[in-house]
């Protein structure tokens, strides 16, 4: 490969990364707006409607405000880690997008073979997403520890416990998906669900869909699992943060939330396939993003509806309800696969066999 080729390749990569990162950043900004409007609508009040037409410029105003605010570092804090923590928490949230396939395209017939729209088509994509999202814990831990404040420390221990607990059931919920799809490649998993609504993994793995989605909700600390940042528990790990650094944490949280919604769509809701094969003329990316948008709406809906869990209730749900469910379902799927008779049923979702 010559130097010119390498430079061209690097340029293409940079463009691909920009093509993912910019929409993510923009959608994070506008999801905050949507969230406020939707919750306002659900709670029969206005929501933000003052800045710009229908309040559409509100996220920009918020961003500007956060940029201009003073950022303080507590005197006794560990300065290096204090500043590094928001970055550590944002990086994995964005890195995870590297393997997400947003669909297949032949670029309006320009290529003779459809290409996968992903920065990197990794054959252990699912594991990659799990590994990278598990690293977001470090941002939380660092923030709590580096602040040198007991409230931040306790908050970070609290939220780390929560994240670790739910990560386990999240991981286990994906095992049946791997078993049915026979692959860790996200593209393969989507392709295994081709052929309409009945082939989607939400049908055989409905309990796992619930476990994954709700655990994802807990993992990113959304209501009803937002003990991470409750007011009555002194805000949690980011009490000492202000201004842009604080905003970075919320940025990471929203990016992770979109990621959960995307992964749920890819793993359980048929990815970029339409519910009825006849509708596949609509580009797959639209379907995928549509499903994702619905799930994000669900997140917001849940936030507007449910009261917060108490800490012991939350732990109980993760360890005593979800974990046994997932273990049982793994066994059920495994038994189905290797039992004559039942396997004919399950083979419907295992096209590769």
């Amino acid at each position, binding site marked *: 490969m010559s130097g010119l080729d390498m430079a061209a390749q690097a340029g293409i990569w940079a463009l691909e990364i920009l093509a993912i990162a910019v929409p993510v950043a923009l959608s994070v900004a506008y999801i905050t707006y949507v969230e406020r409007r939707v919750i306002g609508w659900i709670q029969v009040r206005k929501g933000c409607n003052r800045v710009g037409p229908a309040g559409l410029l509100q996220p920009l105003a918020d961003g500007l405000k956060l940029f201009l605010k003073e950022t303080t570092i507590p005197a006794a804090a560990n300065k290096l880690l204090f500043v590094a923590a928001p970055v550590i928490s944002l990086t994995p949230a964005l890195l995870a997008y590297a393997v997400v396939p947003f669909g297949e395209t032949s670029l309006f017939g320009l290529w003779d073979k459809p290409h996968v729209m992903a920065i990197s088509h990794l054959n252990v994509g699912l594991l990659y997403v799990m590994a990278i999202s598990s690293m977001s814990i470090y941002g939380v831990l660092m923030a709590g520890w580096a602040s040198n404040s007991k409230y931040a420390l306790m908050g970070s221990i609290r939220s780390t416990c929560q994240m670790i607990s739910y990560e386990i059931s999240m991981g286990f919920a994906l095992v049946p998906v791997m078993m049915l799809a026979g692959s860790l490649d996200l593209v393969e998993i989507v392709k295994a669900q081709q052929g309409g609504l009945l082939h989607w993994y939400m049908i055989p793995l409905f309990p796992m869909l619930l476990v994954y989605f709700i655990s994802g909700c807990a993992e990113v600390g959304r209501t009803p699992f937002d003990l991470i940042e409750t007011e009555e528990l002194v805000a949690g790990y980011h009490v000492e943060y202000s201004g842009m650094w604080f905003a970075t944490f919320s940025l990471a949280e929203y990016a992770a939330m979109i990621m959960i919604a995307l992964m749920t769509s890819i793993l359980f809701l048929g990815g970029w396939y339409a519910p009825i094969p006849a509708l596949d003329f609509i580009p797959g990316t639209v379907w995928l993003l549509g499903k994702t948008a619905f799930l994000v709406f669900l997140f917001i809906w849940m936030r507007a509806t449910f009261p917060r869990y108490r800490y012991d209730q939350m732990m109980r749900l993760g360890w005593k309800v979800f974990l046994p469910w997932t273990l049982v379902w793994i066994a059920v799927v495994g038994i189905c696969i*290797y*039992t*004559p*008779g039942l*396997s*004919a049923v399950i*083979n419907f979702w295992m096209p590769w066999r």
Partner: protein
Amino acid sequence: MANVTFPFPFPEHLSALLPEILVAVLAMALLIVDLFVPKERKALTGYLSLATILVAGVALMQVADGTSVTAFYGFFTLDPFAVFSKLLILAGTAIAIIMSLDYIRSEENVGEYFVLMLFAMLGMMLLVSANNFVTMYLGIELMALSIYVLVGYQRDTLRSNEAALKYFILGSLSSGMLLYGITFFYGVTSSLDFKQIGEALAAAPSSEHTAVLLGLVFIIAGLAFKVSMAPFHMWTPDAYEGAPTPITAFMSAAPKVAGFVVFVRIVADALPALEHETVMILSGMAVLTMAVGNLAAIAQRNIKRMLAYSTIGHVGFVTLGLIAGSGSGYAGMLVYLAIYLFMGMGAFAVIVLMRREGIQGELLDDFAGLAKVRPGYALAMGLLLFSLAGIPFLGGFWAKYAVFIAAVQAGHVYLVIYALLFSVVGAFYYIRVVKYMYFDEARVPFDFSENRLMQATVALTAMAVVVLGIYPDPLMELCRQAVIGIG
């Protein structure tokens, strides 16, 4: 359905693993059964685990047919050598469980205690059947992990905590060394199987042996730690003293059997090409081990510590058999380990009997005047101690005899003279306890917990020592049969 196939070909000779599978399944079942056993009747779990051992023993006798079988894609071997040592391990675990029935009653979570012992036993059973490094390492880890927990079982006792922590940290370090040594063997020979490594090393140019030598050092260090061979013995006295006494007895016997058996397999199968280096390293360690064990034991006032050092001393003698090598050397080792299992555990059983309200019964002074109050206990203890010292025509004498003769035959005369010297030193501190029992006045009143099963165990081990002392031939013959085909 036609398109359903079992995901993998069924492992051949699976039945060779029957005892292990039974132990694993029954131990897990016991873990659940124990939840339904009321707290005041937890000894039931102990009896059930004894039954498990009995089942495993019966199964073992069923699958043992005197031939050598390799099972499970070559990761497991069942030969007479493995069968004999498994029987020893089963016996040792059973004795330790009997000792625990009363001892552990005051602790919380009693049920898991017995289950952990079964798992440790399972690890040892796998270890003696290991014919490659994967099975060996996993067996060692299973055994060690269970024992770490058992050592720290009395979690409100500072001594127990300290012992468990020291054992755990040093044990992990030694596991790391072992793994590191294994990587060198794998790097040079591209194999983890003992026999294949042996063949590859025999074929490799001698310059490559340098690389293996580094691995050899690490592997010997790791294994030496597990059998507490000097200079890797430091954990032994602390762990033995702090652990609950039945566990001390268990640790002093069963893991040593398993460790030495796997040592034999490595030395005999994987290292014939490096025999000279192996013998050199092991001889140095044996000399050091005998010296450390026997000299340090003299200074001890706590009998558990004393017996810990005595174990180290005995390990040194057993190593002589390893050095002597194929045939009579390995047979001598087995004889030694079998007899030591009974006399060592018997002595610890007497210590368990000595424990009573408020007194651990572990100091030498606690034994003063025992002969006047309980002549039976004193007689048994005396016999066991004399046997440990190697006084002629008790079991211990024949154990030493078998190993020493083998070493002389292999040409290690100086080592044997040295070992004889240290057995004389060793005799001193064993006989000192007898002096306390028979010639001193009691300082504290004795009132013992009476447990028929325990008393029977003590009596049986003492009797075994006497019987084996008078008539050792069957055991010797059995061991000779067991090691045929090794090395």
